[in-house]
């Protein structure tokens, strides 16, 4: 479905991603793990169209997307749930969700998505009128994911959904991600909680200073030296 090959990405001329390749098939949950600053967010933002690769290629459903704008990417069916959630604080929960369905013109479809998201995260329904900025961290993350689901994307990219949450909530959040996958969503997940992220993933990639250095099933990666040493402290 998504195929990224040997991309290089630069920030104002300086390469940060040197050589990253990965692919996502329909229905898969793919985890990308790596140390702080290894370039995970940069990779997701490049797929999202905020940044563009200076080398390599990106295809989504066999179409070249390496030069597509963010708006085009969203319309093709990829949404990005950014790191640190980026909720519209002064807008209500429901207004935030409706903005997630900005590209959906059909009212009925939008209502259906809203029901779907409220079904996934019932707490959002009880808080629908509350301002996004006044939600707790966990609730904001649910809102961010819900907002990303509102356009019913073909591929959902989650950037550290458990960031800054207390341990109990981290588990809850990752369970929610697992549920999403069970319901047939295709997910590209970036996570700090390496063990959990790799255990629940179909496949995963290890990123190190802008390069994908390992690829395999979650279990395979958990047994590599680099994952054991760098992330699991074994």
């Amino acid at each position, binding site marked *: 479905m998504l195929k990224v090959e040997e991309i290089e990405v630069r920030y104002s001329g300086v390469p940060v991603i040197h050589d990253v390749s990965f692919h996502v098939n329909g229905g898969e949950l793919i985890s990308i793990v790596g140390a702080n600053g290894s370039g995970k967010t940069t990779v997701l933002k490049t797929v999202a169209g*905020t940044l563009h690769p200076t080398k390599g290629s990106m295809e989504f459903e066999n179409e070249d997307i390496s030069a597509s704008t963010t708006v085009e990417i969203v319309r093709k069916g990829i949404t990005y749930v950014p790191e640190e959630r*980026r909720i*519209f*604080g002064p807008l209500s929960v429901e207004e935030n969700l409706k903005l997630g369905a*900005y590209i959906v013109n059909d009212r009925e479809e939008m209502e259906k998505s809203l029901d779907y998201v409220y079904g996934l995260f019932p707490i959002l329904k009880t808080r629908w009128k509350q301002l996004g900025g006044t939600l707790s961290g966990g609730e904001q993350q649910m809102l961010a994911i819900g907002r990303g689901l509102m356009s019913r994307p073909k591929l959902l990219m989650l950037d550290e959904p458990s960031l800054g949450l207390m341990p109990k909530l981290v588990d809850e959040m990752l369970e929610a991600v697992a549920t999403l996958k069970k319901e047939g969503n295709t997910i590209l997940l970036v996570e700090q909680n390496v063990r959990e992220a790799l255990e629940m993933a179909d496949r995963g990639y290890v990123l190190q200073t802008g390069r994908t250095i390992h690829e395999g099933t979650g279990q395979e990666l958990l047994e590599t030296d680099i994952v054991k040493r760098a992330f699991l402290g074994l």
Partner: protein
Amino acid sequence: MEMLVPTIISALLMGMLFALVALGLAIIFGVMNIVNFAHGEFLMVGMYTAFLTATVFSIEPLLTLPIAAMVGFLLGIASYYFLVRYLLKGPMLAQLLGTFGLMIFLRYLAMCIFGPDYKTLEQGVLIGKSIKWGSVVLSYPRLGTAVLSLIAFGIIYWLINRTRLGKALQATALDVEAASYMGIDTERMRGLAWGLGGATMGIAGALLTNFYYVFPTIGILFCMIAFATVALGGFGSIKGAFIAGLIMGLIIDLGGTYIGPHHKFALVYLTYFLVVVFRPQGLFGW
């Protein structure tokens, strides 16, 4: 003292126009974080549009409103696409000086085309009439302008708070990057903000033409009032722009009546200064 009530009423009426003028500035600032120094010149263009349309085709000045709104809208959009868009790529100073340059350009273009003369409309349903109500005398132009400003303000408020497009505009104002992840074309929203800001000024200008002189340098006066109003209300706050507009009307008219007409605009600066020092976020800012 018997002057007090009529002065207050008249001041509040004028305040509604100030609110409209501030609204245009607030929209542009809210979405772009950029101060439009040419704001007053947008008003001037609206005034000339109304004045010329009304005199050349001898039509009722109020009917020129939609035309002035349209011209203002196009002027705003053009300013964004041909100038501001490029300024954004430059340093902060370029952004400041850029719209300053636009201000000078429009002002002296008007000077060049129309000359420095003061012009006034002589005919129109509102012009030169007033209504007496007890001891209170209200001029029709002020009354009509206030009502129409209120309506225009209401429509724009509705547009921003109740429509899908308005929500997208707000999202862009709050967080451009997050807005783009929603599939919102943020570049278009910025253009739209300038268009709306321009249209607001077109309308305000056309209204003002009913009771004020039209001349090329009128912009500076209203630009300063708009800055002070927006600072008072809180940058980017629509509710703030409204309340602050009314307060600004009171300051200018009461000051003019009780302290002296020479000082009324000094009071505007004084208010601006006090707000900046004591409550920089304004009344309704965050």
